[in-house]
Structures are given as structure tokens and as C-alpha cells.
């Protein structure tokens, strides 16, 4: 395939479409608004088709993994699992239709298997987070000591007993979150936003290397 088809043409298309959408934000031109709506439709079609392709891709990939099992026992176990998943998927689709959200079989799976597992992982997550707090609450440098003190003040301000009996702790906690913390967060978000805009402009101008074939 020539470089023009592989690289130049997609870059040109991205630039035209991208700048048209940017222009739509600024200028009240009906043709641009229509073009943007039409693009939304195209994106939806690509999205739906890619989900179908993704399903086929994932299934064939799983099948390939299954065929590679080193022992007969593993082949039987993973094959049974694979077959069960395929049967469940087929039952969901052919019994209840494609709209899985209102499908009784899918909902059974959702409420009895998926949600309990998710909830267990959530619980694990919060336990891990509480357990790992000690890693950040260590006074190893001037900065981490300030962080530790600020964190300590905020935690104490959230405890009703302290808020009631220690004068000013509540206000101090509010100051920590609404002062230094917010002051640090806003510039960080602004810098990230500027970075995002630059990546966008780089892509529109066809200079973004990560999304391009170079070999």
C-alpha cells in the first residue's frame, strides 16, 4: 500500500474533518452543523460494527488460546468454560433478544454473578486503600511532613467529636481543602487541559506520531 493511502490521506481527512468541527463551534453556518450531525451518525455506525468485529475477534482469540492448552485436563476444563460462556451468550441473544438490558437471562447473570463479584472487588479496593495509607503518611521530607500534618488536620476535622470540642479545627480543615489543596488542583487541571489541546492540535496538523504507521 502506498504511503499516500496509508499515511497522507488519513491525515488529510482528519485535518479537514477536525477543523470543520472546530469551525462549527465558532461560526453559525448550517452546513457545518449538518456535517457535524452526519459525522455523529457515521461514528455510531463505526462503533456498532466494531463491537461486532470485536466479538468475533475475542471469540476466535479465546478459541486459539484454548487449543494451545498443554495438558488434556486443562483442555477439557477450559473448553467446558469456553463452551458454557458461548452457550450463555447464545441463550441471552436468542431467548431475550439483542437488548441485553431488558433480557431476563442477562439480568439473572448480572444480579447473581456480576454484581456480587463487583461488590466484593469494591470492598477489597477500600480495604486496600485504608491499609496503604501508611505509605503516604510518612514524614520523610519537609514536603511529606507538611502533607502529613495537613492530612491529619483534615481527618480530625471530619470527626464530629473533634469538630465539636476542638475550637477552629473545622475551619482549619476547610482551609486545607479549599485553600492549598484547591490551589494545587486548579493549575494541575489547567496544565492537563493545555496538554490535551496541544495533543489535539498536533493530531489535526498531522504531526502526531503515536497514531501513525511509520514502518
Amino acid at each position: 500500500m502506498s504511503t499516500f493511502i496509508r499515511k497522507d490521506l488519513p491525515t488529510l481527512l482528519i485535518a479537514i474533518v477536525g477543523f470543520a468541527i472546530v469551525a462549527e463551534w465558532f461560526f453559525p453556518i448550517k452546513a457545518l452543523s449538518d456535517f457535524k450531525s452526519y459525522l455523529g451518525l457515521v461514528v455510531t455506525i463505526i462503533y456498532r460494527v466494531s463491537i461486532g468485529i470485536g466479538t468475533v475477534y475475542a471469540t476466535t482469540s479465546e478459541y486459539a488460546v484454548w487449543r494451545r492448552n498443554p495438558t488434556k485436563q486443562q483442555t477439557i476444563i477450559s473448553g467446558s468454560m469456553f463452551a458454557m460462556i458461548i452457550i450463555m451468550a447464545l441463550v441471552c441473544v436468542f431467548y431475550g433478544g439483542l437488548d441485553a438490558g431488558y433480557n431476563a437471562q442477562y439480568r439473572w447473570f448480572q444480579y447473581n454473578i456480576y454484581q456480587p463479584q463487583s461488590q466484593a472487588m469494591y470492598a477489597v479496593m477500600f480495604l486496600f486503600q485504608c491499609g496503604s495509607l501508611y505509605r503516604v503518611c510518612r514524614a520523610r521530607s519537609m514536603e511529606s511532613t507538611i502533607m502529613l500534618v495537613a492530612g491529619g488536620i483534615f481527618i480530625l476535622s471530619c470527626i464530629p467529636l473533634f469538630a465539636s470540642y476542638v475550637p477552629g479545627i473545622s475551619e482549619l480543615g476547610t482551609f486545607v481543602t479549599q485553600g492549598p489543596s484547591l490551589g494545587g488542583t486548579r493549575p494541575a487541571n489547567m496544565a492537563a487541559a493545555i496538554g490535551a489541546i496541544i495533543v489535539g492540535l498536533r493530531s489535526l496538523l498531522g504531526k502526531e506520531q503515536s497514531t501513525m504507521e511509520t514502518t
Partner: protein
Amino acid sequence: MEILKTGRIWDLLLFSIFLGLTIYYLDRASKGKSLPKIRSIAALEAIREGVGRGVEIRKPVHYSFGPYGAVVSGADVSQTVASLGILQYTAGLCARLGARFIFHLPQQPFAIPLLEGAVDEAFLKEGKTEAFDKARDMRFYGTGSMVFASAMASSFMDDGVAMNVLVGRQTTIIYPALEAAKIQGAINIGGTARWTAMYIFALTCDYIFIGEEIYAAGAKVTDNPYMIASIAAEEALKYLFLAILAIGLILSAAGVNIPAIFKV
């Protein structure tokens, strides 16, 4: 008939400045003029170290965008693009040094061709396309963030982990996977431009791409002058914004109604 939509004049002005500065620095790069250097980013150096570690201890390097990582539309798409650069860098290093590379695909199936292409490209550049076993080492877990986190943790247990890299649009839900990698003794490297999710990396990672560092890292790994040039434009814009903030503060203190000015 109005030429501009109401309230968009400042947007247009800012966009023009953004575009002008970017084009100016890209032009400098195309003419071979000097560009500012990007300082070394500790997390990038650590990726090289982690891949080397993977070769030594014969354990794989894991890479992931997170469960919702590969967004291809909206404001977060830039994080996907930045992470793609780091993905190619990590995969390329694995191919060159001979470490096993495991890629955990995010839950967006429409992004799979893009991500697969990026990894293929990295292995192709090193002339080792056969070294990446896609059927075994490219893993898709379907939808569900908790499923993703537990599947990653399970993968760390089954295959081992020398280094775990998680860069892109992250949510805090990926935390159990990071902790699992830490328990397994891996080097954890993470980064996101989503400030609200940064704390999980602070808790679990050995090295972090802090906020917008992922964009700089994504550009630095390509070693391409145009990418570096755009980062120079970004820095110039930051100074511009600092100046605007300072002027705004002074004017506000002097009693000027700043929001009213921007309502044009």
C-alpha cells in the same frame, strides 16, 4: 447576520493563539532550528529499568490503559494518544531486550484495532513480529471495571509480573490491580491526566507520570522534533496563562468585574 456565535469571541481568540504558537514551533522544527529540551522523566527511565528487570527475572511486563482507558472521542482522547506513545515505547523495549509483553486491552472493543496496530508497529520496528504472541498475551475482558481489575490481578498471579505500566484515562477502580502488582513485587508505574485519580498512583506506584507529564512523555519517547516542538508550544501557553492569571488577580483586586469581560 452574525458572523460569530454569541459568547465565542474569547474562545476563538484563545484557539488562534494556541494554533499560532503550535504552528510557529512546528515551523521551527521543520527548519531545524533549536528547540527546548524536555527534561528527563523519572517514570520513563524506570520503564527501561523495568523491562531489563523482566529479562533478568524472566517475568513479563504488563501494560494497560485501564478499563476505560482507550477513549477515542471527547476530551480524554488526548490521554489515549499520549498513552499510545508510551505503549509503543514499552513494547519496543520488550521486543528489543527480549522481555515477554502482556497487554491488557481496555473495555472499548472499537479501540482494539488501533491498540493492536500500535503494538504490532513497535514489534515490527524491532524486526521481531513473531515475539508477541497475541492469542496468549493480548487479553480482552469485556465490559466491567471490577472484572478488569480482578482479571489483571489474576494475570499477575498466573504469569508473574516484573513491571506493571498503567497509563491513560484512569479511574480509581483500577486500584486492586495496582495493589496486586505491588504484592507480587513488581515495579508499578502509573499516570493519568485525571487529577481525581492521581492519588491511587501515589499510594501504589514506584514512579508516576504526574498529570500532564503523560503528554510530555508521549512526545519524548518518539524522539520526533515535531512532537517536541508541540510540547514547547504547550510550555509557552502555560506561561501565557500564568500571565493572564496574574493580570486577572490584579484587576480583580482593583475592582474590575472580570467575568463580565469574558461574556462577550
